[in-house]
């Protein structure tokens, strides 16, 4: 596992979220960012971009975040995952952490602090 967080793959079905996540992770966090529109390309991107971390939206049509997460693990992709969700009930957060996520970011996120938030989860994992 890479000791330093450099490359992040963002998976979301919403273009406005993807673009603002990319911008804030690149400009504020200085990370290298790849985007994945919808869950379908997540596995492929995870293999080709080889991110250190995947930022994964929970509510997506086609395949939701937790299912996408399980598919990645089934495919042998062990990249740490942070979920993004609008429903930040404690039970739900616990469910994602039990599943194996290293953290949960609540939506709408603050583009100025997103990178710091993710970095802290990365360090504490």
């Amino acid at each position, binding site marked *: 596992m890479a000791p330093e967080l450099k490359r992040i793959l963002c998976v979301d079905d*919403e*273009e*406005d*979220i993807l*673009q*603002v996540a990319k*911008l*804030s992770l690149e*400009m*504020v966090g200085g990370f290298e960012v790849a985007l994945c529109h919808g869950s379908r390309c997540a596995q492929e991107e995870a293999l080709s971009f080889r991110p250190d971390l995947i930022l994964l939206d929970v*509510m997506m049509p086609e395949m939701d975040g937790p299912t996408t997460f399980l598919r990645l693990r089934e495919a042998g992709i062990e990249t740490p995952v942070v979920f993004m969700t*609008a429903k930040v009930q404690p039970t739900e957060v616990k469910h994602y952490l039990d599943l194996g996520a290293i953290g949960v970011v609540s*939506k*709408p*996120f*603050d*583009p*100025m602090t997103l990178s710091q938030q993710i970095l802290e989860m990365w360090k504490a994992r």
Partner: protein
Amino acid sequence: MNPNDLLKPLRGMYLAQLRERADSVAAFLRHCQGGRVREDERDVMLRQAHKLAGSGTTYGFPLITQTARALEEALDAGVTEPAQLIPLAESLLHTCEQVLLSVERGAESSLAGVGDPSAPDLRPLLLNADDDPLIRDLIEALFKDDFRVVTAADGEEALRLLAELKPQLLLLDEIMPGMTGIEILGKMRADESLRDIPVIMLTGRTHSGDVVRAVSAGAIDYIAKPFDPAELAAKVRGLLRRSGRTVLIADDDPAIRDLLAYKFRLAGLRVVTAPDGEEALQQAALHRPDLAILDRMMPGLDGVAVLQQLRKNPDTKALPVIFLTAMRQERDILEGFRLGVADYVIKPFLPEEVLARGLRLLGLGTEGA
């Protein structure tokens, strides 16, 4: 770093989306005010509210998140009573409109040289795909005062920019290295998110077979190089004014349907068609057209019956309707007007006349059509 500087490049995209989403909130509100909201309409609103809630604060508009979340939670909890949903939808719509209005004001004042320099550029976006740098420069010079012009030098880049920027119009060179214009059109038609972007094809060839091929591949117009810049400018301005409007054409004669569909598409409007009255009503409910052209005599539900149904539904009550008819009797024409048709065209007709009457009803000019 200042959050405003960070978000500046994305504000335009967010606001364009916000405008569309505000429209869907307005549509939902109308359904509520009509006293009845269907389950599918609630589902659409739930998804839109979820999206508005999930990005508002991120883009600097926390009130959008708050008001959208209130509506989302009510819908999620299964509230179906219009009286309970109306105030929530109203407050969300009001918030979206306030945001859009304040930004528009900002944009105006920045045009006047004062005010907020970070206000987003809301001019329509024109993508120009051409491998010839001279043509690219010419087109940029021609349109840069009224449009944001983005250029692509080959097919791959054009497709990437189309998906990324969703421009209001594509000017497409037919022959570029790597991928032909026809191939690009084919890919666009296969992609739902790109299908409705109007395309004008530019080419060095003027063979009539090429024109037919381009138009049947989905281009709405075709200009041969060397072109007259004034003619191209007139076409582009007319198209952008008309794009986004939808016309429903219902006739059981496929030749008439196709001919009129072709004419209206060429003028830059979105067209949906129906071969009979029942389908016309379905299409009207689904696509909410801005104008309907109905054949008076159709099998099953005829034009009169369709018109009566349209008038009963609050969504289509005010939809302007043009009747097409072979009957040339004064009585029929007068009856049509009594029923509330906006205009009447007698078969056989000139397609240009139907188009001109349609554009007039839509309040759109015929420049460049």
